[in-house]
Structure formats: structure tokens, C-alpha cells
């Protein structure tokens, strides 16, 4: 026995300590004094603001946080377009940009659920288009459902379609690429059938009412300010409380300066949003207010990110995307969790499709669901979501979708044709993944 122990300590050098606290709880605390604490490297583990900054810098360098470089890219784009055409940062164009980005970003949210699993859902675009068509038809002159009931029906349809895709992927173990490709082709036909039913003649308009206002309507300036105040105030209270609790329990990475910074950043964003949108952007008539789609998109963002970050379900999604076998062995029900993610993709795609329908003022057979879903994947990936699963946040689709919208919008303003716009979007996607791949590789080498 002594012989063996000597063998171990001889070899172990730095790690061997003779502290061997027994398993009982109260003695373990005592053990903390004996054994050096594992978090005694405060410089990089985030006890101070500079530590957090340094940690963030390390993360960027190791390719873990795609958000900082992409935000810099976004700022660069804004500066570029502003110098080319001073109308770019006008209040009118900025509000326009928000409504253009709203459905793109939401389609991106949809795709993230399956991307996190390492899967893909190519049918999300047409799935959303079908939800939009269902809503337009039900709420339109042929059926006259109340708008909210029509929306519920539309979301139910798209959720079921998403769940069906997921069931086939999970039960039959067919790659999601193939299953959803089949659905992409098939749903395109279903969309045509819906819109050519009866005497619809290929399009159904939502010419007025709440459905049109979802994207095109605005909050009154006062309501906008109230909403911003509630949003920022709620965020501040929750953040300060939860960070304080983290500090009390000795968790890592939340010095007060960081809490303050987060709150101030959100407050600044909220105030900027309200100022820009509440300014008069009308040319002939007075037009102001935050577009309805902004709180809708932000609401989905907060809800989904909350699900991902704070619930067991979200944790399971990341675990399955990271190592499905490890998750299974740890007792995670992979099948049910994956099915739920596919259903959430369908649901969110439905929401995005309804926003898109609202923006177009109706549903028509000319909706290109294939293009929509590819832009959704591009938005997520440009924002920093991995196609291989396990990495990404909802906010990545927000940033990525904004970038795509800015490029289309900005290039339209400076008079470039659609062909050039598509080429540039392609190059931006390539650049975004290249930056991530290179930083990841250099991190491995380091």
C-alpha cells in the first residue's frame, strides 16, 4: 500500500496532495482549505472587468465567440453604405430596414433549433409560406376568421409540418437534409394547391387590419417609449438580481462593471430604437412609431434564448448537438428532444412566414421558399451558428439576418442590381465562415 502511494506521488509531482476529504458534505468544505481551489486564477477567469474583457478576447481568438467580429463587420457595412449614400442612415430607411430584416431574422431563429442539433430543415421556407397562406385564406374575404384565430391555425399547421419532418428524421433515421428536401419540393406544390383552391387565382391579399399591421403598422410614439421603458427596466432588474445572486454564491464571470455595461448597452439600444422610429419619417403625411414587428421579433428572441439557456430542454439540445451518444448515456431522451426542436423550427418558421405575408400584403404563389430558407441558414451561419451542431445562440440569427438585410438594402440604395447583390451576399457568407474556420484552426494549433 505504502509502496503504491509512493509510486503515485513520485510520478504526480505537482498535482499530488495528501488532502483526501471523505465524502460527507461538511468535511468537504474543510477540504477546500486543504486542497488549492481550482478557481484561483482570477486574471482569466473573470473576477474583474479586465478579466472578463481578457477572457472575451481569448474567446474571440479561439473562435468561440463569432459575435464580436461579426458586429465589427456590421458596423463596417453601415459606415460603408452611409458614405456611399447618405440616405442609408435616415430614419425612414432605418425603419424600413427593420421591417425588411424582421422575417429574415425570424426564419433564422427557426433554423437555429435544428442547426443546434447538427440537422437542417430545408422545408422551413415553404412551411412558413404555407402558414402565411393559411392565415391569409382564413382571415380573408372567403372565410373571415378573426385574425388571431387565423394566426393560431397557421402556426398549428406549420408546427405539425415541422414535427412531421422531425418524426421521419428520427424514426426512419433518414438524414434531415433529404427529408426536408423532399418536403421543400412537396410543400411548394401544397402552397400552389392552397392558393389555387376555389377561385383564389394564386394569391390572397391581407389588404387591411391587424394582419397587415403586423409588419407595416407602428406603435404610437408614446406606446413605443412605454414599451422601451418596460423592456429596459425589466432587463435591468432581472440582470442585476441574477448577477447579484451569482456573485453571492461565488460563481464566475460577473463583476459589477459587466452588469452595469450590459444594462447600459440595452438601455442605449432601446432609446436609440425609440428615437429613430419615433421621428417623423413620412414624406407627405406624418409617419412615426416603432413597427409592430420589432417587439414581435424581440419577443421571440428573448423567449427562445431563455428556453435554450435556462431550461433543461435547451441544455439537452446543446448536449445532443455536441455529442448525441454522451447525452443518451447521461439519460437524455434524444428522440423527444429532437422532435421538440423540429416542431419549434416549424412553429418559428410559421411565425416568420406570417410576418412575410404581412409585409407583402398577402400570400401568393410567387413566394420563393427555397430562397427564404437558404437566407435563413445564411443568417444563422453568418451570425456564428455552427452547421455541425451544438454551437450558437438565437442572437446570432438577429445579427446575421440584419447583415443580410443591410446588404440588400444598402446595395439597393446605391443602385446595384439584384445580380450583384446576390453575388455579394454569397461572398459575405463565405467570408463569415472562413473567418470562423481560420480562427478555430489557429486556436487548435495554439
Amino acid at each position: 500500500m505504502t509502496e503504491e502511494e509512493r509510486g503515485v506521488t513520485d510520478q504526480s509531482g505537482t498535482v499530488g496532495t495528501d488532502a483526501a476529504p471523505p465524502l460527507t458534505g461538511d468535511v468537504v468544505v474543510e477540504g477546500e482549505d486543504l486542497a488549492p481551489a481550482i478557481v484561483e486564477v482570477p486574471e482569466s477567469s473573470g473576477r474583474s472587468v479586465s478579466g472578463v474583457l481578457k477572457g472575451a478576447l481569448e474567446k474571440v481568438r479561439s473562435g468561440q465567440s463569432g459575435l464580436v467580429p461579426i458586429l465589427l463587420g456590421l458596423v463596417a457595412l453601415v459606415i460603408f453604405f452611409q458614405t456611399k449614400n447618405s440616405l442609408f442612415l435616415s430614419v425612414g430607411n432605418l425603419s424600413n430596414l427593420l421591417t425588411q430584416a424582421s422575417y429574415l431574422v425570424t426564419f433564422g431563429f427557426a433554423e437555429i433549433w435544428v442547426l443546434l442539433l447538427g440537422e437542417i430543415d430545408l422545408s422551413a421556407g415553404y412551411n412558413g409560406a404555407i402558414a402565411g397562406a393559411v392565415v391569409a385564406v382564413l382571415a380573408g374575404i372567403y372565410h373571415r376568421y378573426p385574425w388571431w384565430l387565423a394566426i393560431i391555425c397557421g402556426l398549428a399547421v406549420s408546427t405539425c409540418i415541422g414535427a412531421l419532418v422531425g418524426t421521419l428524421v428520427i424514426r426512419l433515421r433518414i438524414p434531415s437534409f433529404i427529408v426536408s428536401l423532399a418536403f421543400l419540393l412537396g410543400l411548394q406544390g401544397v402552397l400552389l394547391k392552397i392558393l389555387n383552391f376555389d377561385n383564389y387565382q394564386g394569391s390572397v391579399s391581407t389588404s387591411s387590419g391587424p394582419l397587415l399591421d403586423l409588419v407595416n403598422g407602428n406603435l404610437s410614439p408614446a406606446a413605443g417609449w412605454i414599451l422601451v421603458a418596460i423592456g429596459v427596466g425589466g432587463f435591468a432588474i432581472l440582470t442585476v438580481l441574477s448577477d447579484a445572486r451569482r456573485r453571492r454564491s461565488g460563481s464566475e464571470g460577473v463583476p459589477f462593471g459587466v452588469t452595469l455595461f450590459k444594462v447600459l448597452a440595452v438601455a442605449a439600444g432601446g432609446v436609440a430604437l425609440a428615437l429613430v422610429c419615433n421621428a417623423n419619417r413620412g414624406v407627405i403625411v406624418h409617419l412615426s412609431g416603432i413597427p409592430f414587428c420589432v417587439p414581435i421579433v424581440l419577443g421571440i428572441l428573448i423567449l427562445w434564448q431563455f428556453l435554450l439557456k435556462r431550461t433543461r430542454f435547451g441544455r439537452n439540445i446543446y448536449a445532443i448537438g455536441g455529442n448525441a451518444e454522451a447525452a443518451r448515456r447521461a439519460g437524455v431522451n434524444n428522440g423527444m428532444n429532437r422532435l421538440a426542436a423540429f416542431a419549434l423550427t416549424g412553429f418559428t418558421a410559421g411565425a416568420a412566414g406570417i410576418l412575410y405575408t404581412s409585409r407583402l400584403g398577402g400570400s401568393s404563389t410567387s413566394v420563393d421558399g427555397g430562397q427564404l430558407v437558404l437566407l435563413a441558414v445564411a443568417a444563422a451561419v453568418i451570425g456564428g451558428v455552427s452547421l455541425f451542431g451544438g454551437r450558437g445562440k438565437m442572437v446570432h440569427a438577429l445579427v446575421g439576418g440584419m447583415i443580410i438585410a443591410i446588404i440588400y438594402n444598402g446595395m439597393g440604395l446605391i443602385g446595384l442590381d439584384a445580380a450583384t447583390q446576390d453575388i455579394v451576399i454569397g461572398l459575405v457568407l463565405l467570408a463569415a465562415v472562413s473567418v470562423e474556420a481560420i480562427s478555430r484552426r489557429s486556436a487548435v494549433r495554439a
Partner: protein
Amino acid sequence: MEPTFQASPSTATNVAVEGGVATASRNNDQPLLSLRGISKNFGAVQALVDVDLDISLGQVTALIGDNGAGKSTLIKTISGIWSPSEGSIFWNGEQVTLKTPRDADALGIATVYQDLALCDNLDIVANMFLGHETMRRGLLDENAMESAAKTTLNGLSVTTVKSVRQLVESLSGGQRQSVAVARAVMRDAKLVILDEPTAALGVSQTAQVLSLIRRLADRGIAVLLISHNLNDVFSVADRLAVLHLGRMVHSGPASDYTPQTAVEIITTGSFVKAGTGAGSTPSSASGEPA
């Protein structure tokens, strides 16, 4: 889990068995886990034949043997992946049946497989609690999990990890092994089975893991170590158990063996001449384990 209450071989003479008094103070000599006459067939192939094995708390038992000797089959039997074709398993003297990994888990048997089963994209805390997250009002209680993870790692003197919020992909092989072991310990495992824990590690990493194994045993946990590396085995093991072609050909205190005799037993199933020094006649498998 309905353990049929029976006297284990080692407590057969214990009066406490009378009237099924289960609360009798546990005899310190009583092994935590006893296997008696375990056999396992896969069709005509006999993977295990009449295997006896005792594993005690606070001891490192090394299971050694050549490829195909039945080591994997044996640990899969203990961890509930396969049921034995014949034989009985006793846990603290009570007979138990391990039909699924969940049964083994419920008893406190944790197996750390060679591939570790960690999620690279999650941090250490998330990995340690995967599938068993601490909840607070229906939400993940990150603070409680973080401090519990720290306490466990500190208790095991895992000191090389910079932060428990590090992603597992950034850890070295030895650190990953430590996280996998700590996960088992944190869930109150009484028996930790380690399958080739040092196979993929360098020299200093191996030393880290070996001292971790030693500390596990010193904390009163029973450790079953499967290893090909006799240096590792002799530096941490209290007892050796040698499998040869599915039979437990030798078992006894590690001090009864030398690396040379161990190699001989592993390759031939017996050693012809008694080794050097005391204890040169370790009990053979068919006899009574010490």
C-alpha cells in the same frame, strides 16, 4: 430494484441474517460488490466462465488480462449493460439483479468508459450535471451546479483546471478524464469503474489520473480499474484480479505479485514457479477469495 434478501457468501455465518435484519452494522470485511459464479455466453462463445470477484470500499481493484480475456464483458455485466447467463451479484451482501444501466446507476455504480462521453461544446459544469441538472423553480440552477462542481473537483484535488466554466474541448486528456471521474463521484457513486483511463494519455497526464484514482479510493470509494499498463496497475492497485480466457485465474493483494508474475499469468493463465518473497501463493479463482 427488488433485491432478494439473501446472505452473501462472506456473511454466511453472520447471525444478523436471522430474521432478515438488514440494519445489522456492516462488517468492514464485507465486500461492497461480490460476483459469484458469473458466466456469460454469446451463443456458443463462452465469454466468462464461473467468475468470482470481490470489490471493497476504499480499495483500487485492478482487473487485468489480455485482449479477449473477458474484461469488457465483465464490466458490462457489472454496469448493467448485459445480464450474466449464470451466477449471482451481491451488493453490500444483498443479492441484486442488474438488468439495465439504470439499475446499476441506482445502486451507485458509475462507469467511466474509454471515450469518456463528454460534450465538447458544453462547459465543465454542464457536463458534470448532464441529465441530472439541479433545478430551481423549474429552471436550471447554474449557481448551485457551479458551486457543487467546484466542491467536487476541489475535493478530488483536481487543481489544474483554470475555470469550471471552461468548455470541455479546451481541456487536456487528463483533465477530461478528471471531469468524467468527478461526474461519477458527484453523483455519489460507491463504485467507480474506469475503463483504460490512461490509455490515451502522456506521462504527466497519466500521473495526474493515477493520483486521482488513488484519492478516490482514499475517500472510501471502491474503484475497479481496467488497464493494460502494468506500471499503472502496480502503482495504484490494492488488489489484482487476472482474467484469462474468460476465467478468473488469480486474484489477491497486489503485493503478492510482481509485474513479471502478472505478465506470466496474463499470458499463460498461471505462473509455474512461485515468485519472490512473501505471499507467493495468491488464492486462485476457484478457491475462496481472501
